[in-house]
């Protein structure tokens, strides 16, 4: 909402990052979402993550589908190119964009309606192609923008605002991503910026498709008693499995002395994801265990959060395609076209 006071992202200082930008430089237009909407907190976390990673805003491409969630790209990185596309089909646009220019940082924002209903096929296939991007699913269990219908992530038995119970099994985006061979799967909560920011940073730096399911409550249509996606329910049923710290390559020198004792995952560019195991010896590089663990916890109604799985040797779309290292948009025309003489020669075969 543009003209009613709203919780502002905190700017305790106008501190500058390594490329001389303040957090303000990573903001976007004023939010037009409802006061208290989870999505706005995700926006805040994203601004923080981009700032901390010292990314140049204009080297980022931000994409979305349609929905309240899909409006959020407007609210951060005003200096990045944005694409608010059509409902559920952002993954294909991101895939094409990334194929054309692999040098930008890609972030996609979607909702549970956008990703798990109309866009489910595209989501599954972008996972399969392992397109290098951070994909944030702002999950509130409803269609916010069309005023509160159940989405496919609504749990069986969860109550609608008018009291009706959802009769269908929920689709769990994280489980689905694991099943489809995703190389980076995390879950977090819009209300837990501490946890969310490092996950987003790690996702941005992961080479491949980083899927982050963020429980992001809809205060207007799904924050009541009986909803399993309300702030209260989510807070109560959160179960954190690990505590992630993301260490970009260039900062590595400043690692604490006891670094060796913390398990870590080294990404392709040398950055490191370090995680503190909160639940027993949860290991986010062990996919099979991750899966059965999630199932187990889900059965007892828990919402497992943290970095659930990461594959350090992920091969992205361009690795598999063997694209030249340069963005295709920058390959000069002359290197694309074999010329008149070759055309003449080539045609011998058609005679």
């Amino acid at each position: 909402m543009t003209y009613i006071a709203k919780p502002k992202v905190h700017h305790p200082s106008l501190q500058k990052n390594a490329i001389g930008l303040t957090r303000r430089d990573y903001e976007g237009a004023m939010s037009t979402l409802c006061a208290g909407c989870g999505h706005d907190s995700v926006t805040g976390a994203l601004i923080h993550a981009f700032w901390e990673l010292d990314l140049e805003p204009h080297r980022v491409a931000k994409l979305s589908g349609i929905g309240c969630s899909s409006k959020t790209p407007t609210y951060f990185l005003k200096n990045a190119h944005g694409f608010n596309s059509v409902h559920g089909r952002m993954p294909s646009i991101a895939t094409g964009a990334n194929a054309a220019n692999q040098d930008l940082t890609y972030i996609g924002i979607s909702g549970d309606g956008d990703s798990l209903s109309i866009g489910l096929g595209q989501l599954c296939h972008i996972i399969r192609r392992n397109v290098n991007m951070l994909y944030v699913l702002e999950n509130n269990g409803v269609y916010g923008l069309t005023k509160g219908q159940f989405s496919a992530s609504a749990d069986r038995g969860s109550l609608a605002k008018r009291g009706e119970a959802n009769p269908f099994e929920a689709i769990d985006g994280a489980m689905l991503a694991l099943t489809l061979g995703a190389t980076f799967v995390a879950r977090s909560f819009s209300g837990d910026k501490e946890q969310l920011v490092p996950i987003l940073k790690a996702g941005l730096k992961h080479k491949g498709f980083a899927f982050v399911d963020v429980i992001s409550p809809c205060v207007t249509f799904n924050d009541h008693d009986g909803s399993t996606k309300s702030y209260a329910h989510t807070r109560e049923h959160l179960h954190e499995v690990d505590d992630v710290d993301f260490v970009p390559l260039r900062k590595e020198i400043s690692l604490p002395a006891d670094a060796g004792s913390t398990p870590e995952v080294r990404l392709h560019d040398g950055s490191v994801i370090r995680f503190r195991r909160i639940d027993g010896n949860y290991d986010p590089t062990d996919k099979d265990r991750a899966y059965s663990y999630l199932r187990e916890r889900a059965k007892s109604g828990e919402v497992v959060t943290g970095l659930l799985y990461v594959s350090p040797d992920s091969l992205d779309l361009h690795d598999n395609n063997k694209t030249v290292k340069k963005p295709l948009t920058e390959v000069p025309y002359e290197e694309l076209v074999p010329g008149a003489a070759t055309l003449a020669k080539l045609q011998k075969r058609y005679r």
Partner: protein
Amino acid sequence: MINFPERVNAFAFKIATPNGSGSASANGLIMQAIFRMGIPVSGKNVFPSNIQGLPTWYEIRVNKDGHTARTPDFDLFVALNPATYKKDVAEVRSGGWLLYDSTWPLAAELMREDVTILGIPLAHMVNEAFAGGRERILMKNIAYAGALAALLDLDMEIIAELIKATYGRKAALLASNEKALALGFDYAKKHFSCPLPIRLAKMDKTAGHILIDGNTAAALGCVYAGATVGAWYPITPATSLMEGFKSFCQQFRENPDGTKRYAILQAEDELSAIGMVIGASWMGARSFTPTSGPGISLMSEFIGLAYYAEIPAVIFDVQRTGPSTGMPTRTQQGDLMLCAYASHGDTKHLVIFPANPEECFHLAVQAFDAADRFQTPVFVLSDLDIGMNDWMVKELTWDDAYRPDRGKVFTAAELDKMQAFHRYLDVDGDGIAARTLPGTSAKGAYFTRGSGHNKLGGYTEDGGEYVEVVDRIARKINSAAEALPQPVIIGKGHKLGIITVGSNDGACREALEDLGRQGIGVDYLRVRAFPFAKSVRDFIDAHDSVFIVESNRDGQLRTMIQIETGIPVEKLKSIRYYGGFPMSSHHIVSGVTAHLKPQVVAREAQS
């Protein structure tokens, strides 16, 4: 027996076989050999929508005058598929010949008094000569090719050469082919008086020409236009376009270390394919997708996004018979209206209509230029006949001085010099606002959206701001009419005119001559793009009556001309054929004369 006049280099024959039996290569061989003899030739492959067993046909027309449109009159029929005997034998013209496999007794269905029946024991011969089952099936085809060589006086040296070129490296295969060819040839020579009155004789009319299908040519066009991202979902008859692009890219765009200067994305469906194209084009890559009718329907929502957000995209629609799945291996021009006006809301798109593979090449390049220049989707409407059949066309030429017209795209340096950048501002007054590519600079950043936006690029729900943008887009699209490929016109001042589109070109040109011989003078215009150039209207205005010739049921081209020119429909007589085969001149001749008759009658009644 009817006495058949000799017809050198002017006849047609048809071969019927079951699908998947390998006849395609034998048929291609015959056609190519005729081409190498310097004689204008065309081949139409009529195949079923399955992989093995259903009936398939191959039609070859030889015409010294260069008329290579389909003809339904066959002088000779090679009937090797019992499943279609009855239908096939009816297609031989009276006085013609029927060749069948005399390993088995002549089927009653094949008997026809007015046709000379030639029996060759093909199965018997190849079973004697070859061992493996698969080889026997394949060699039967080469054997009938040999027989046709004798009957039609095909140059055996040329065939031998072609076989050598194909199987040169596989000695055993080469030997088998040569043997099978000789089997058929010798048998025919021995048992029939060869050649028949329909026969071939060397000419020099194919110099400077090639035999190529439209999909391959369009793929080459994409390569030469500098397209780097191709996204697609397989669909007949568009599949071979992307396969062609891939093979050319493998040839010309791979580095010694195996890295690629292109990306081909096999999407999960057509919605995704067009989304990928839009994404890549947004980034500044030239990008395209080949598809057919069902794909266009599925892409409709995205097409509206590209139109309204003004993102280039090149979409090849290789049309097949609709509606719905229709007859996927038959041709038609049924998607004209859909492509011109695809998507909900007020939309109108640029459409380019190649008539043959040569134009597929050249117009593909122009399509990319138009898409970039007008920042909008451009459809290239081909069809199954153009796309999948080999056509004799002029050798493709290229001007090395060509550089893509990327339209108005601001660089970082240009942006630096500007006060501010506004995405949808019509600075030049030509309806086209400059764009920037993602990643260029912070100053060039803007938000692309399919929802309401104003000329500055901001979100809007204000009616006035909305109208300003959509009105400009309408102006932009209409302004493309004179920039797109212009109509091809043959005007000799006649009172009658024919207007057509795409692959009907050959049939129409042949019909012009046929009508001329009947004393009916007709001028000709073939549209090559939509929105139509002014010359289309002028042509209609300059003629008393105009016949619109097209391959669909509803007269879609005629409707579009009516919509865009406002010319009363009475003036636009409709001639349509839409049974799935390529158009023939006789459809047009009989259409024109049928229309004229009532007029004559009317005139007579008055006098």
